[in-house]
């Protein structure tokens, strides 16, 4: 029923030989061996959905759209359905999912388990805001319905629970009417990280899409632009055709194209190109899934892959962060290929969810010793300041530090234990922190 498989994280930085099982019926999920972990699209930057002691259960064959309810505003989908399939189905009906991450092959089960964020977390919240109910297979409880009104505790544990509560069979997700056919983008330029923080904070309530992009060399002082995107009705409907995507885990052989010199050159060209074209109209598909056309960006990282690090800096320590970050960049000279920031706000933090108020920083670096050393220093800052780290998108996170970053993590595992009555369980690396 299961077979050997070489698992790699999206960034190629984690590789594990373990077992994979691809069930296509409910009874095959029920008949699993003792320890398992759900596996969605496999686009997590971390080794969260595979583990040498567990069999990964793929949701690939659970990929159907089950219900579309326009009146009540929801869609029921199986957990293996990709965001791309949902996007094209809903687009025809002039609806969309308000919260979705930037890669089209991520599954709905992955979005729930990682409680992902979308293009403007400040305005739309995380994925938990659009989940109506979940059908979950739990080894001790069988197939159960979870919602705000039914099995609430397990519902809360499942959202952002990284697959540790069971296998999500399907979910009802809230949908929103989409009047627009394109996204109008405008770039606002800044000269420092601090200035970027201010623009993001001020613009967050007013825009549908919001993120910053920075140059990362010392001499540039991290200048860049904030991209402000808004839905726009347009007579000329830009192309939103379904695309067959390349293998994003394929990498350039032997070496990485990125080093401090090439990155500086590429970033300068990109910066001036962006300066010349400050406004542009993009298709809905490209706006929702900006990574879909960026396969070459990942390819150039080479066989060693990339390290993505994503964390939230609370408002009160933003100055300390800027000083520390700039000093560490000066000292270690890492090759930061991408630095991007979003503005987050929450009043509902729970368990292991990547959800807090502050600035969400994303960094991409080639996987090498110099860059790992830089991240080591950064992580001591994050650990001391108890900053939240994105467990699905952070390939450098050390599981032993879970308690520092997530004060609720003990409560999470204690609550999980309440549901464990047999030896069968959902298990990942997180259980061995």
């Amino acid at each position, binding site marked *: 029923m299961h*077979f050997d498989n070489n698992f790699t994280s999206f960034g190629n930085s984690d590789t594990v030989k373990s077992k994979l099982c691809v069930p296509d*019926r409910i*009874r095959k999920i029920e008949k699993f061996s003792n320890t398992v972990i759900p596996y969605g699209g496999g686009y997590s930057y971390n080794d969260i959905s595979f583990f040498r002691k567990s069999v990964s259960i793929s949701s690939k064959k659970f990929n159907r759209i089950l219900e579309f309810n326009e009146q009540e505003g929801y869609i029921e989908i199986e957990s293996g359905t990709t965001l791309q399939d949902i996007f094209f189905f809903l687009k025809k009906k002039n609806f969309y999912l308000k919260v979705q991450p930037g890669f089209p092959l991520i599954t709905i089960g992955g979005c729930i388990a990682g409680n992902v964020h979308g293009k403007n977390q400040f305005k739309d919240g995380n994925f938990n805001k659009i989940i109506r109910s979940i059908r979950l297979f739990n080894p001790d409880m069988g197939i159960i319905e979870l919602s705000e009104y039914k099995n609430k505790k397990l519902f809360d544990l499942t959202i952002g629970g990284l697959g540790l509560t069971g296998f999500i069979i399907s979910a009802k997700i809230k949908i929103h009417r989409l009047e627009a056919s394109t996204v109008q983008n405008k770039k606002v330029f800044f000269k420092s990280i601090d200035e970027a923080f201010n623009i993001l904070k001020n613009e967050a309530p007013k825009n549908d899409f919001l993120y910053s992009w920075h140059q990362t060399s010392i001499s540039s002082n991290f200048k860049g632009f904030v991209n402000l995107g808004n839905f726009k009705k347009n007579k000329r409907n830009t192309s939103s055709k379904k695309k067959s995507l390349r293998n994003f885990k394929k990498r350039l052989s032997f070496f990485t194209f990125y080093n401090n010199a090439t990155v500086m050159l590429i970033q300068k060209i990109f910066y001036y190109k962006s300066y010349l074209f400050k406004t542009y109209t993009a298709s809905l598909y490209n706006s929702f899934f900006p990574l879909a056309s960026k396969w070459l960006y990942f390819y150039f990282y080479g066989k060693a892959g990339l390290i993505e690090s994503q964390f939230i800096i609370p408002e009160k320590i933003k100055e300390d962060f800027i000083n520390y970050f700039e000093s560490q960049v000066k000292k270690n000279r890492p090759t930061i290929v991408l630095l991007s920031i979003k503005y987050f706000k929450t009043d509902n933090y729970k368990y292991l969810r990547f959800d807090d108020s502050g600035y969400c920083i994303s960094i991409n670096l080639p996987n090498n010793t110099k860059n790992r050393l830089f991240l080591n220093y950064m992580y001591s800052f994050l650990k001391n300041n108890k900053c939240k780290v994105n467990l699905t998108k952070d390939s450098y996170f050390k599981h032993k530090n879970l308690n520092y970053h997530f004060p609720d993590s003990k409560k999470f595992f204690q609550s999980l234990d309440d549901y464990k009555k047999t030896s069968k369980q959902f298990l990942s690396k997180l259980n061995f922190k």
Partner: protein
Amino acid sequence: MRNKTAIIIGASSGLGRSLSIELAKSAVKKIIICSSDIRDLIPLKKHIEVLHNIDVICSEQKYGLDKDAVSKTVKLIKDLKVNLIYFPIGYSCEDNLANMSTKMSQYIMDVNYFCILQICSALHKMALKKQMLFVGFGSIAASRGRSNNVIYSSSKRALKSFFESLMHSLRKVDSYVQFYDLGYLNTSLAEGKTKIFRPADIDTIARTIVSNINKKDITMYLPSYWFIVVTIIRLIPNYLFKKINF
């Protein structure tokens, strides 16, 4: 096609699932999907209804376990005036060897052969009077007996022979029969297995089968290159074949 009603026996996964969706796309009036677990049928019914807006009826039948499953299916076909009958049903297991227990062998024979034979036999009279389509599915595993997959391939070979007879017995009436020998398909059974030939996409195979819906009396391999492979396998002299371990 628009006035026709189809039944897919073994619809919950693999080719049966793809076939149900392809038939729904081609706008048959109604589809009946049968399988041993209603929990797998309901999502398929919902999916077809939401995407293709046609009537779908679910029927949970445990062939090989419930002795009334065949008679219930026959009744359903007669009551709902079904014209198109597809049998993508099948079962095999890993220890399918010559020394398998009688009970398990019986079950494999029941699911892969006897239940289909009984349904077709019960409908034979009806097929002589009104136009019906019977579609059976064999396997390249049945092309030549070997030490693995023993009971499954025997049942599939028997099924092929039965469908040839059915085809012959209905040659003078409007009803017709199709039989497809299937090669490796990308079902969940093929996941993780290294094969010399790349497993064919089940959606493409289902599309081909549905596009052949009006063709009378077909016996073919899908994908068609398996005809050449099977012919070569059959031509291998016995003394050499014995030495091959597969």
